[in-house]
């Protein structure tokens, strides 16, 4: 198999019609995955025997005449999603050997559709961040430039063809920025489209499960599989109600895409040029373009961080070393808490928990938290107004190229990297990141943002825009 040009849909077709078997496919990709992992550090755990066992079960189903939409498709899963038979670390050294007694709904839907989980990918401390530099396992490296971070380990794995589909969480933009940094496609669906049951999220208001792949067809195929109501996640009730509204076929001529001239002007020249070229290409492919502006982008970013920190302080409180995780010997209760939480969290999770506690405490609550909740309303209003005028919005996904592994970046400056992604999360909108070109031989993507539950339109439009997905030249395998 030539994985470098393989799509998930093509792989499933080959397995379904007997050109190959899931076992064969998985065996080959596991070999590739292992070899590349030595260079890229994308996987925390490559689940060889488990994957082969799953593949054998898929082959049996296919042999018995079943057609599975993702038969034999090798899937990687970010390690904040629980899988029943694989360890789940949440990016914490205290959970090195944790085997979750339940599996994430989205992962189980994928495997029910014939996909095979080949491993769990690297992530930041408690899943917080979009660089993987705070991972206890060290950062995942960018297949385009191994001296730089990948942003998202799974995006790197897709780019290097270590897997064909990657399932991961996105809060402030990790998935989208990872896709941009690695030159692949990443979709963050609307909250409520995909059940988050089994996803550890540090910020429940924003944490969503998305899909990364190297073709829009694969994104669509996986989305269809993982979408839908799940009684175990209240947010999915809305999609159950709205699912009747089917999206019309995407004809560029009738789709109006908003272009944020003022925002693009904020970018560094290389990035700005890239976006302007993308605009021309998009116009050339028949879409109507119109200008739009957002006045509250910087404020939205800050509101996102305030709310995310507050929720982090609370969401991570369950990690107390009593029912799961790790506990050191302690003389008294406080010592137990202090020690086991220290063992569980790294610097970023600790910082956010502490700052979040500060934000929610008496005296600061109104000033910061309540103000952020109000700005949230204003930001939603602003996006809603813009999306009344446009069907889709074009936004940058990143401000800069992926950081060098050795680079020490001030944490506030790191937060600024989410300037274009976090506000979209705050607005509760779906977003798809697609590659549009290169800056300094490194891929850069842009976001297409749509109305709630308009994922099909995003995917359809993206399929008309995306140039051929390039394979990272440095990956020789």
């Amino acid at each position, binding site marked *: 198999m030539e994985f470098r040009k393989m799509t998930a849909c093509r792989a499933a077709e080959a397995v379904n019609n007997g050109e190959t078997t899931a076992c064969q496919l998985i065996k080959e990709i596991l070999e590739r995955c292992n070899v590349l992992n030595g260079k890229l550090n994308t996987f925390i755990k490559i689940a060889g025997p488990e994957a082969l066992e799953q593949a054998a079960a898929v082959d049996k189903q296919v042999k018995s005449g079943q057609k599975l939409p993702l038969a034999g498709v090798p899937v990687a899963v970010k390690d904040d999603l629980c899988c029943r038979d694989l360890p789940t670390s949440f990016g914490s050294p205290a959970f090195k050997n944790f085997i979750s*007694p*339940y599996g994430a709904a989205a992962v189980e839907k994928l495997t029910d559709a014939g996909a095979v989980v080949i491993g769990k990918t690297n992530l930041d401390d408690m899943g917080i961040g979009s660089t993987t530099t705070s991972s206890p396992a060290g950062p995942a490296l960018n297949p385009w430039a191994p001296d730089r971070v990948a942003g998202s380990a799974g995006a790197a794995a897709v780019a290097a063809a270590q897997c064909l589909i990657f399932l991961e969480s996105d809060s402030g933009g990790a998935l989208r920025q990872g896709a941009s940094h690695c030159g692949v496609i990443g979709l963050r669906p609307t909250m409520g489209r995909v059940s988050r049951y*089994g*996803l550890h*999220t540090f910020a429940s208001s924003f944490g969503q499960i998305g899909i990364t792949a190297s073709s829009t067809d694969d994104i669509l195929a996986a989305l269809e599989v993982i979408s839908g109501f799940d009684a*175990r996640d*209240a947010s999915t009730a809305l999609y159950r109600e709205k699912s009747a509204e089917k999206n019309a076929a995407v004809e560029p001529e009738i789709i109006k895409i908003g272009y944020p001239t003022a925002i693009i002007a904020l970018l560094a020249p290389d990035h700005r040029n890239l976006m302007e070229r993308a605009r021309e290409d998009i116009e050339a492919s028949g879409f109507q373009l119109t200008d739009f502006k957002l006045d509250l982008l910087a404020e939205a970013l800050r509101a996102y961080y305030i709310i995310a920190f507050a929720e982090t*302080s609370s969401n991570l409180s369950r990690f107390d070393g009593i*029912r*799961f995780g790790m506990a050191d010997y302690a003389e008294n209760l406080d010592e137990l808490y202090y020690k086991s939480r220290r063992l569980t969290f790294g610097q970023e999770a600790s910082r956010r928990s502490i700052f979040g506690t500060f934000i929610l405490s008496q005296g600061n609550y109104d000033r910061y938290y309540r103000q952020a909740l109000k700005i949230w309303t204003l930001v939603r209003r602003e996006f809603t107004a813009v999306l009344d005028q446009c069907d889709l919005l074009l936004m940058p996904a990143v401000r800069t190229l992926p950081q060098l592994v050795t680079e020490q970046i001030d944490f506030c400056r790191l937060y600024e990297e989410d300037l274009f992604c976090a506000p979209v999360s705050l607005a509760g909108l779906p977003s798809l990141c697609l590659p549009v070109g290169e800056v300094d031989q490194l891929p850069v993507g842009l976001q297409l943002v749509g109305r709630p539950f308009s994922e099909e339109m995003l995917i359809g439009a993206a399929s008309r825009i995306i140039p051929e997905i390039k394979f990272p030249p440095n990956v020789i395998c």
Partner: protein
Amino acid sequence: MEYEVVIGLEVHVELLTKSKLFCCCPNRFVAEPNINTCPGCLGFPGVLPQLNSEAVRHALTASLALNCEIALYSYFDRKNYFYPDIPKGYQLSQFFVPIGSKGFLIIEDDNGKPKTVRIGRVHMEEDAGKLVHAISGNTSLVDYNRAGVPLIEIVTEPDLRSPGESRRYLEQLKGILQYTRVSDCKMEEGSLRCDANVSLRPMGCPDLGSKTELKNMNSFKAVEKSLEHEIKRQRDILRSGKEVITQTLRWDEGSQATIVMRGKLQAHDYRCFTDPELAPIELTEEDVEKARAALPEMADVRAARYVNEYDLPEYDAGVLTSSHGLADYFESCLELYNNPKVTSNWIIGEFTAQLNSTGLEPDQCSFQPKDLVELLLMIDQKLISGKIAKDVLAKAFQRGTSPRLVVEEEGLLQISDQSELEKVIVKVISENPDSVENYRGGKAKSLGFLVGQVMKETEGKANPRLVNELLLKIIGS
């Protein structure tokens, strides 16, 4: 100086549901620890809360029964703090918007006059687990069976003025919650728990004095006792010119005294914010009116009806309606037997005695209304005497058989056959010539003795009125 007592009560009540508030674990007491637990109520990462509809229905019913205004839009908030019995590091509770507010109950004050006690709020929340302290002393043990059990908290304004008023408020509250089947309110088993805030102030002073909080009162009697104790303690302190320290006290049943639990009441900062994972509860006016219409007749209304409709003494009406089960039982009997006072006598007397000795509720025992009516009809038909009937009731109750069967099996049918009785009377007269002489000599008491002898001879089966008649006829002539 004279002081006025100011008491406010906070009552926690476990709701009668099959499952817990946010997960499907059984809501039922089991001795074996940590049996009723799942990833949800143990706070495992990635598991989201699923709200129990029955708990919401109960909370709405209770709020309406307590004359509250209903919040048409409410939700759950997170109260963040650490304690081993709180699995998530926060308690989900309706902190900002309680489902019910501004309610009231009318009780009798110490002079027997009606008095309104304002209810500030009724809100839903989840219960905590239980801590057990190991005998060895070097470890504490946590049992999460109770964690996540649905509760409502009912908080009064500081309107109560004496231990007696407090007890009557609790009795009335318990009656209402039992009547509406919201809770079984078993204080001894912890399904109703009460904390009290107590303070004293000089008569006529509008400001509240510094208060203490009383906990661990396991019965209504304990509430009354501990309040009396605490009031005396505070009065002594104030009279000696000292100040009452704001603190939490625990009632110790053994020594019948309060013990300081926590020095200085610290104003705890729970950093409350709205839970982002659950969906809000939206009710329509129609929902509320439907629930209001479905409320059962309350105890006081029912008691008044018994007095008016059945001509029962107020005492009887009060006792019968003290529990909805007993009142339902009474009314079922009346459908089959049209003598309210006789029915009431038997239910309040012998039937209740059996319930008390077995600890059963009326609807749990096999002695059904039709059985009691069968018994009453046998008395009316003079098949058994009232005295024998008491015995029959006890046996039928304990054996779970019908009263008629007991009467037949034990040969207890009353002797109303005149000739048979005359034989016994003649025998008794011949054996007790002295008593006969005495009676004839004017000692009326001796007749009683002779009746007794006849009853003894017939093992109580003789119809006493007939014996009396016949005796008089025989010895009087």
